[in-house]
């Protein structure tokens, strides 16, 4: 992290605070004043910006606010006379019960829809709470599929769920491997033992043999893990073609550094699944050696579109890390704005049905037209990235690819 980046962040945050602090007070003091006379349309942006998920929450919040700013600058919601969007920010503190209480607060502050809250555990609580208020709740991301399978009519999930990501990842791996003449025959899985890593590992163990890849070892670790040396030693001994990590950012960085320190490299590739930092620009820039050639199957944008390039440029100008949280929440706000436009009235029920019939297609994501089936966006899919020369490039699916994959990786690089 460079010094200037840190400063920029701080300034932005202060400005955000000055802009919304007073508002927060007013909205709670007068919870019944729902209809804003000056025609602003309130959107609840709910993320865990303190506690264990603070980084991810903060990134998410930035993405949502960036889109909101752009939408307002472009004239607001035209079907409602150019009404401007107004963000009501809320902090779920990385706790479900706080998230649920914040939904109540947002509902009473008169928000028309909620987007967030990044984590599955919180999403389960917030979607339930939003249902009571008939509030449309656009879930940005949350791996657990039960978020959308519980029959809550107000709940929509923008990003693909667990099942979709893993089947995509396996399909991609199979194709990439086949294209290179099937060099990858063995794998070691390294996963965190919590919310998503454990499930990933289980699924991989079931499916990888079907692709002709033998799982030599499955190494689980807690979050945070203080030391990865043992794991590195075990990987070295197993000497796999593939290392498949599935863990959070901090642990991923520590793991990548330890692997490099211990001179451990896979024979063919590092293939991460929703891997903490394998698609984190800061990581790629700071540890070019450790990061080079890392592959990741994750939520990622479509780098080939002009729209996406403009977006990436803006994020870079603000000095933010370009991460998938920013991308997804930027997109969610756009999807919400589109629904508001078509609903043409500040009415929760109308917005809900507008979301349900959404066909929004101006994505920065590599998604097809938005199509919510039982709340899940069927147009959503992840992408495969690889860090090449310090840049994060999309290498699969081919129609969105910005670079050609290096697979297998060169052995003395």
């Amino acid at each position, binding site marked *: 992290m460079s010094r200037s980046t840190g400063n920029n962040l701080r300034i932005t945050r202060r400005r955000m*605070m000055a802009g919304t*602090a007073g508002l927060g007070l007013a909205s709670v003091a007068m919870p019944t004043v729902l209809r804003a006379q000056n025609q602003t349309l309130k959107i609840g942006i709910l993320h865990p910006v303190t506690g264990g998920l603070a980084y991810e929450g903060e990134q998410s919040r930035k993405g949502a606010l960036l889109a909101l700013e752009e939408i307002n600058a472009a004239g607001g919601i035209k079907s409602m006379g150019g009404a401007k969007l107004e963000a009501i920010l809320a*902090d779920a503190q990385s706790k479900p019960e706080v998230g649920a209480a914040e939904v*109540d607060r947002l509902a*009473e502050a008169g928000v028309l829809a909620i987007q967030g809250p990044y984590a599955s555990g919180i999403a389960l609580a917030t979607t*339930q709470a939003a249902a009571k*208020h008939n509030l449309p709740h656009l879930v940005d991301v949350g791996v657990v599929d*039960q978020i959308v399978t519980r029959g809550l009519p107000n709940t929509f999930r923008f990003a693909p769920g667990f099942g979709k990501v893993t089947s995509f990842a396996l399909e991609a791996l199979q194709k990439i491997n086949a294209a290179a003449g099937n060099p990858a025959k063995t794998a070691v899985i390294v996963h965190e033992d*919590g919310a*998503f890593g454990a499930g990933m590992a289980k699924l991989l163990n079931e499916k990888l043999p079907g692709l002709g890849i033998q799982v030599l070892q499955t190494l689980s670790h807690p979050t945070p893990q203080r030391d990865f040396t043992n794991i590195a030693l075990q990987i070295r001994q197993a000497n796999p073609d593939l290392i498949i990590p599935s863990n959070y950012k901090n642990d991923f960085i520590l793991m990548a550094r330890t692997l490099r320190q211990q001179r451990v490299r896979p024979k063919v590739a590092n293939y991460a699944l929703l891997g903490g930092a394998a698609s984190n620009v800061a990581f790629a820039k700071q540890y070019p050696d450790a990061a080079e050639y890392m592959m990741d199957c994750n939520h990622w944008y479509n780098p080939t579109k002009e729209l996406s390039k403009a977006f990436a440029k803006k994020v870079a100008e603000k000095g933010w890390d370009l991460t998938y949280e920013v991308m997804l929440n930027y997109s969610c706000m756009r999807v919400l704005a589109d629904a508001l436009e078509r609903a043409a009235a500040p009415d929760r029920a109308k917005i809900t049905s507008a979301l349900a019939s959404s066909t929004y297609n101006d994505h920065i994501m590599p998604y097809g037209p938005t199509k919510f089936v039982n709340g899940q966006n069927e147009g959503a899919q992840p992408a495969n990235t690889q860090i090449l020369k310090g840049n994060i490039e999309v290498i699969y699916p081919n129609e969105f690819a910005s670079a050609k994959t290096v697979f297998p990786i060169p052995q003395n690089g």
Partner: protein
Amino acid sequence: MTAKIAGAVLLALLFCVPFAVQSEFWLSFWLLVLMYAFLGQSWNVLGGYGGQFSFGHALFFGIGAFGTAILQVRHGVNAYAAGAIAIALGAIVGGAVGLLVFRYRLRGAYFALVTLAFAEVARILISSFDYTGSGFGMLVPLARGVANFQFEDRRVFYVIAWVLVVIGALVAWWLENSRFGARLMAVRENEDAAQALGIDLIRTKVCAITLSGAMAATVGVFYVQNFLFVDSHLAFGPAMSIEALLVSIIGGMGTMFGPLFGAVVLHALGEAAKQITGNAPGLNLAFYGLLLILALRFLPNGITGLLSRHPARRSPESTHA
């Protein structure tokens, strides 16, 4: 006495909340306050009246939460029966921990640390097996209905929480006026003297931790029925343990309404901090921490101490801790 009157008045006022307040947010707010007040009371039974400081009350909370969730999800047990069994499990685990720990005469900081370790062991074990939801946690299916202990109208949950707090206050009142309570407080003041008087130290403390475990497990059951989800970190992580002891100590340990006062004041402070500091991540919690320290600085005997002329907990004879 003043504190007790104030507590009773506060309870009566809180009963009116769901009928007087339209706001769902404030209903949620007071619901959580009541829930934490009862969790604090469970800590207070052992820590306030018994002098045994637990740092791991999340253990019992988690047993209740995971107990009821697993019984419902894995074995299809009816929600009420599952809740009852989970509470019993909380009592059993409390008793077992007590038997083990008190037999080896752990007290003070040692007792605190061992409870912390037990909660951590439970957290790791729960997140290690598929049966207990491994890393995912347990999700109770959403099926609103009285039969499933999932009420459409949140006011029902509110009233249940309120009744729990009343029961908690009655338990405290019973401790203050029963022979068992007298024995427990004697143990707190001076174990050697209590033993000399013929009090069975282990038995008294084990009874207290059993009761405390059952109460904390009740909160776990209540939490799951409300939010229908729990994972090992939420349930057994240090946050719950800290919440339990914080509301109790700030409110006034070993007093009937201490945990309630503590929960009300701490959550009000937290809300005020949020309003004052706006949306800057972290600033509100930092401010909350500052208010906590100021409260300690200027309310050495907890809130109850402010309300009554006699300082909470300390009896005149015992000047030495």
